[in-house]
């Protein structure tokens, strides 16, 4: 199976007043293409820190990725991390130089975040900005990453203008085209949201196409420029020399200054928006419809506080999906929601995996959700991966005492006679974690070796690895 994301020996620490919080000690796992990988564990075992490390969203200070590798396809996502650490670890970093290096890395990472890897955050209310409308926040992400696509769609729409008009009259999308507008049209068709929605989309497309034809030269120019920028970005993601990289970054920095996002809100408020804004809005509408939001066109104009928790979570998911990411990290997407709403959101994620082939990392502490969704499961404890297995194998043949304890501590609806088993104690303080196996103070099988020696990861059967001294077998690492 092809690997979408490889995380190896990831180590993240937080340097705070009380000492060093060793949040991630040695995290290794692989996410395959098109699968759902579940990460489970108690609060404070490093699930979210793993996600934030992959997204490079660890606030620095106090946190820092110390070492490790994260690769997505051919892209090395840990690029420049050593350089950054070196500068910060020097006693007196030269602020100016320091800023430059970090800015360069940020540029690289801004292209990854939201475009290739995106994230659904735990608290939808906190993830959205309360002073901007839903529309604003979805379009922002489309604007940043998909400018070329927007322009291409408008251009091809202008080429098919008479066809679009005839579709509008009949209220049905008849023929299929092989260009950008064709794929958009088939997307609208697949949404199956009824005649009103189709007409709305067609109206907007026709409007854009007419405006495009009026100022053809200007938009052609924009498209050309946008493609150039895209090429540069593509280059930056691959392996480039130091000098070439600097020159690309200087071009991109100028470009970033030009597309000021704070003007976006003003543009959105105009009665007669330019075609780029209106196409981005149409895309936002299609996104909201694809996550099953009823009345999507009105919801676009709403502020986050006007929506319920389930709706907000859908909006957050829509934003995460806005650029068709290859990898989606869902950090406790349903924890704040009711069971019935949770069922809706899970259904949505399942469709996503099926229809778009997105690889999903699902972080949760609910083993029930994992059982329903995940193909493979990673169990984490106190900053370490303690067990990895396909989900069937994990639920029927758990190996690590912690996994066994977790599975036995869930009240079962399907089997109420099952006695609840308790894991003694709580997750240790990670400033002074226990020596040896970090689980040893709570483990009922702990023996003297556990107290001193960190257990190696052992492969007990194919695809099932466990880090525990109780098992012997081939050492994986």
């Amino acid at each position, binding site marked *: 199976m092809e690997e979408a994301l490889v995380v190896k020996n990831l180590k993240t620490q937080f340097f705070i007043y009380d000492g060093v919080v060793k949040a991630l000690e040695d995290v290794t796992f692989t996410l395959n293409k098109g699968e759902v990988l579940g990460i489970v564990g108690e609060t404070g075992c490093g699930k979210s820190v793993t996600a934030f490390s992959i997204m490079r969203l660890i606030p620095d200070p106090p946190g820092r990725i110390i070492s490790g590798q994260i690769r997505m396809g051919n892209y090395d996502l840990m690029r420049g991390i050593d350089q950054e650490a070196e500068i910060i670890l020097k006693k007196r970093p030269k602020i100016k130089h320091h800023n430059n290096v970090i800015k360069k890395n940020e540029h690289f990472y801004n292209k990854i975040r939201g475009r290739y890897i995106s994230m659904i955050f735990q608290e939808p209310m906190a993830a959205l900005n309360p002073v901007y409308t839903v529309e604003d926040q979805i379009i922002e992400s489309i604007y940043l990453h998909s400018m070329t696509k927007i322009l291409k769609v408008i251009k091809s729409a202008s080429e098919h203008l008479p066809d679009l008009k005839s579709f509008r009259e009949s209220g049905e999308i008849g023929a299929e085209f092989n260009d950008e507008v064709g794929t958009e049209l088939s997307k609208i068709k697949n949404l199956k949201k009824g005649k009103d929605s189709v007409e709305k989309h067609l109206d907007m497309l026709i409007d854009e196409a007419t405006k495009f034809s009026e100022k053809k030269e200007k938009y052609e120019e924009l498209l050309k420029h946008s493609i150039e920028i895209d090429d540069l970005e593509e280059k930056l993601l691959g392996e480039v020399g130091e000098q070439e990289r600097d020159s690309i970054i200087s071009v991109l920095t100028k470009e970033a200054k030009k597309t000021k996002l704070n003007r976006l809100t003003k543009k959105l408020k105009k009665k007669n928006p330019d075609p780029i804004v209106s196409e981005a809005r149409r895309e936002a509408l299609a996104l909201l419809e694809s996550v099953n939001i009823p009345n999507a066109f009105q919801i676009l104009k709403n502020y986050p506080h006007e929506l319920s928790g389930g709706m907000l979570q859908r909006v957050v998911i829509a934003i995460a999906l806005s650029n068709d990411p290859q990898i989606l990290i869902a950090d406790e997407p349903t924890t704040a929601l009711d069971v019935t709403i949770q069922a809706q959101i899970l259904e949505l994620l399942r469709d996503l995996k099926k229809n778009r082939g997105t690889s999903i990392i699902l972080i949760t*502490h609910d083993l029930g959700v994992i*059982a*329903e969704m995940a193909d493979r499961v990673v169990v984490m404890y106190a900053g370490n991966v303690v067990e990895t297995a396909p989900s069937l194998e994990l639920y029927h043949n758990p190996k690590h005492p912690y996994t066994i304890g*977790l599975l036995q501590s869930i009240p*079962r609806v*399907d089997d109420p006679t099952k006695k609840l088993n308790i894991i003694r104690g709580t997750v240790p303080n990670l400033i002074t974690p226990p020596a040896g196996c970090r689980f040893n103070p709570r483990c009922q099988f702990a023996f003297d070796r556990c107290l001193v020696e960190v257990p190696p990861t052992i492969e007990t059967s194919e695809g099932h690895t466990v880090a525990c001294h109780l098992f012997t077998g081939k050492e994986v690492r």
Partner: protein
Amino acid sequence: MSEILLKAIGVRKYFPIKGGISGRTLGYVHAVDDVNLTIYKGETVGVVGESGCGKTTLGRVILDLIEPTTGALFYKPDEASVNQLEGLYTELTANGARELKKEEKKILGTTKDNIYKSRSKRKDFRSRVQIVFQDPVSSLDPRMLIKDVIAEPIRINGVPKEDGTNDGTGARVRLRGEVANKYVLDIVTEMGLNEDHLYRFPHEFSGGQRQRIAIARAIAVKPEFIVLDEPTSALDVSVQAQILSLLKNLQKKYNVTYMFITHNLAVIRAVSNRVIVMYLGKIVEEALTDELFEFPIHPYTQALISAIPIPDPTFKRQRLVLSGDVPSPANPPSGCRFHTRCRFAKEICSTEEPKLKEIRAGHIVACHFAEEILKTETSSSGIKKTRETAK
């Protein structure tokens, strides 16, 4: 049937929505709407429902923490007076809530066991019931030592005298000084904490420990009845298991009655004897736990049960995903409140409100099509039956 501990009749709680410059009342949030509830001694009643369905409000009304708009609360009532009142309420309800409120005062004055009858009666009632709140962070005073947190209720309400029985009639004694300290230490040890913990502040504890402290505070006065308002929803599964087993042990030891409010059906199944399902301020289904999980009848209960994620990847079942959100309780749908999301909804559902009726022994449902659903559908939506078909 065992002894009735608490009886609530015709409970309604409407919260006014204030708005505008003058602060006029624009409408009412119908948090709890015409609920009759009986709690028997020694049992655990589970109350489930989505957020905003009025579970917490009901819990607070039952403890007399908030006064209901209409309705009465009886503590250890005698059957005759309750039956009489129940009849009167059913008659009056037909005239609407406003009429009911007018007549209510007259009726309540004549019945005994009603806890609103006098101030002293109310105070006495409150000393025999307790609550454990959902969020252990905000329910403990950050400036009080744990010792004081637990000692406060026994200083104010006292504990039953040692020789007296804990049936609500025995005299209570207020503890102070050394005796109180000793008493607090005993309670805390029982909760799995130690003496050191007594001289710390709430912020020094983890979520699970704080919840233990909150339970210690509730159990300190040896109450007869405790409302547990989502006591484990802020906790990890491993800690949740610890708290649930602690609660079970306490119930055995002190013979205390629980009302367990939660949205987690798996927890409900593990702890309760009887389950009440609420939707938008109304009780829609009520049955013994096993009965409810094996033969859910109300479409809402069926959907709730089918939405529980089960930690077993081989477990396959028919999934009934409800569309949409819970409607606003300020403007609940007409007729059956669930009809906007119901898959069986017909015309009658939007016009006529279904009454609670007994469909099977001890199984009460408010649905127009309960009998038909029972005949055709239930066998495929209950947890136990699906398990068999899955095999």
